[in-house]
C-alpha cells in the first residue's frame, strides 16, 4: 500500500541520510521526498511517499520515532489528508500547436512562467492524478521535460 509519511526533524546536516538509510536497509524505494524548513527554522518537515507491506512501514515509522533527531512522525495515509505537488513543464510546440498548449494550460489553471520564441514553461499545482493527466495531454504537443517537487501533505482538521 502507498504511504505518505510526514516527519518533523531537527534542521541539521546528516538527518536526511539517517531517515533515508532506514529505507535502504530494508530495500524500499522512496517514491518522492520533499524537505524544507518549517515556521521554526531549527526544524524541517520531511514528506515522504513510499509503498510496502503495512507491518514493515509500521516498523520503519517506529524506528523513526526512536531517532534522536526526529521529533514527530505521522502516517498521513491512515487519516484524511490533503496532498499537493508542484510541477514545471517545458513544452516546445510547433507553430500550429502553440495555441492548443495555451488552451490546455488554461483548462488546468496552469500558469505560464517563462516564454521564449520556441518554448513555454508551465507551472501547475495539484494532486498526483491531476499532474499526471496534465503530462499525458501535453506529451503529444511537444513536451520536452518535467520537474516535480514531490508530494507535500497536511492532515485535515479533526471534526
Amino acid at each position, binding site marked *: 500500500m502507498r504511504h505518505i509519511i510526514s516527519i518533523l526533524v531537527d534542521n541539521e546536516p*546528516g538527518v536526511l*541520510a539517517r531517515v533515508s538509510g532506514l529505507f535502504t536497509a530494508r530495500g524500499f524505494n522512496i517514491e518522492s521526498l520533499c524537505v524544507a524548513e518549517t515556521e521554526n527554522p531549527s526544524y524541517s518537515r520531511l514528506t515522504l511517499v513510499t509503498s510496502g507491506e503495512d*507491518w514493515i512501514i509500521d516498523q520503519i515509522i517506529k524506528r523513526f520515532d526512536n531517532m534522536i533527531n526526529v521529533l514527530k512522525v505521522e502516517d498521513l495515509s491512515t487519516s484524511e489528508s490533503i496532498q499537493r505537488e508542484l510541477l514545471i513543464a517545458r513544452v516546445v510546440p510547433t507553430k500550429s500547436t502553440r495555441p492548443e498548449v495555451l488552451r490546455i494550460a488554461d483548462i488546468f489553471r496552469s500558469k505560464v512562467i517563462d516564454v521564449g520564441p520556441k518554448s513555454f514553461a508551465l507551472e501547475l499545482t495539484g494532486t498526483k492524478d491531476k499532474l499526471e493527466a496534465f503530462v499525458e495531454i501535453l506529451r503529444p504537443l511537444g513536451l520536452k521535460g518535467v520537474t516535480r517537487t514531490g508530494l507535500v501533505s497536511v492532515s485535515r482538521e479533526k471534526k
Partner: protein
Amino acid sequence: MKRFIGAELFFESLYNLGIRIIFGLPGGYVLKIYDVMPSYASKVKHILTRHEQAATHMADGFSRASGLPGIILCTSGPAATNTVTGISTAYMDSVPVLIFTGQVPTPFLGSDAFQEADHIGITRSCTKHNTLVRKTKDLPKAMAEALYISTTGRKGPVLVDMPKDVILGESDFKIPNKIKLSSYDENPTLIKRDLNSLKARLSKSKKPLLILGRGSCEDENIKNIKAFIRRFKIPTLTSVMALGLVEDSDYYFGMLENDITSVSYELIEQSDNIIVVGCDLNKIIPKAVLKNKKLTIVDIDKAMMNPTVKSNLNIYCSSTSFFEKTKDELEPLEFVWEKEYLSKLSSKNLLNNKKVISNNKKAAIFTMLSELLKGEAVVCSDFSYEDVNLQKFIKFNNYKNNILSGGNGTPGYGFPAAIGAKFSRPNSKVISISSGNNFQFNMQEIIVALEQKLDLTIIVLNERFSDKKAKYKGPNFKSIGESFGAKSFQFNMDASLKSNLSKSLNRKGVVLIEVRI
C-alpha cells in the same frame, strides 16, 4: 574564565561526567589528547589496548559487569572502522558504550584525506546516535548529550566524532548539568489504560508465563520481579542475556531456548498468555511457534511491537516502571498451573541437561566450572550460534556475571570483555572462556592483561585437537600464552580435569588454560 584546548576539554568533560576509566589506542588525529593525558592521569585512567575492536569489547564488558558506561578513544580511519564490530555488538545487546573518534580537520572533511573515513555514515546503522562536533565550544555539550542518550531509554552505543581542529581549538569549559532533548522519553511509564488491559487479559488467562530479557536487567528491578513471580506464582523463563536475574526463584524454569524438546517450548505451548518483558522473542524463537499465541509485549522500544498481530497486547513502558506499578496495582489471581505438572517440568529440565552433558564435552566443562565457581565469578564467553545454549550450564548469582555477545554473536568477544569486566569489578573473580578459533580473534590482548597486572583466568577449549578430520590442528595455546608471559597450562579431557581446573582457577595473575577436547 579559564581557556582550555579541545583535548583538555575532553578530559574535563569526562571527569565532570563521572568517567574514571577509558580504553583506547593513540593515532594521528587524537595525538593532542594523548599529549595532555599525563596531566589528567590521576583523574581519568587510560588503558592502552592493542586493537580497537578489543578496546570496544573491553568497554562493553566493563559496562555489562558494572552497569556503568564504557568509553573508547581512538583515531580516525582504520581505527574507527576497527571499532565497528564492537559497536555493533554493543548495539545488538543495548549496552551503553561511548566511542570517541578522531577525525580529519573540518576543512578537509570529505576530501579523502589521509586516514579519513566517514565515521558518521559507517556507524549510522549500528549506533543509537552519532554526532560530529564542529566547534571546540560544543564539545562538552556533545559529550554530555552522548552520555545521556547512551545511558537512558533503551541503552546503546553513541559515537562522537572529533575533528583535529576541534581538538586543538580553544574555548571555555561549560557543560550542561541537565540534558533535555525534545521528544525523547527516557523513562516511559506504565499508563493506566495499559494496566487495565493487562488486568483484563490476566483475569481471563489460566496459564500465564513470564519471559524476561535483557531489557528487564536493572538492579532496581530484581526485588520487584521476584515479588511479582512469588505473588502470582507465574512460571518464568529468561533469555540467554538475562541468565542470573531470577536464578533462585521457585518458579524459574531456566533459559528460553530454540529447541523443540526443551521445557521452554513446552511452557510456551501450554501458556495462554505470555508476558514478555524487554526481550526480542523473534531473535530466539521462530515466528511460526508464536503464531497463535497471546503475547503481552512490554518494551521500552516501540519497534519491538507489531500492531498488525491482533492477538498481541503492546505495552510501551520501561521495565522498571512496569514492575514498580504492577507490584501494587495488580491483584493476585487464580491460575491453574498444576503443581505436579510444574515439578515434572523441572525434573524434565534436569534430565535434558544431563543428557546434553553426557554427549557434549563443552557442556561438561561448563558444568564443572559452574560447580567450581559457585555463581560468584564473572564469566565472559563467545560462542557460535549452535553453542549459545551451553550458557545455561553455568549458574550465575547475578545477571552482571553473565557476559556474552548475544545478538551479534561476535567471535573473539569474550576475552577482551573479560579484561574490561575486571576493571569494573576488581574484587570479583573474572574468567573468559572461548573456543580455540574464537580466542584467536583477539588473543593479542593477553599483553594488556599482563601490563595491567590483572588476575584473570583465560580458558581456551581447543576443539581441533580431537577432530581427526581437521586438516589444520590449530596452534598450541599453551606456548602462545607462555610467549606472552602468562602462566599457561594444558589439560586433557580426563578424570583429573576438575582438580586441575580447580587448582589453576585459584592462581593469581594472568592464567591461560588450554583444554584439549
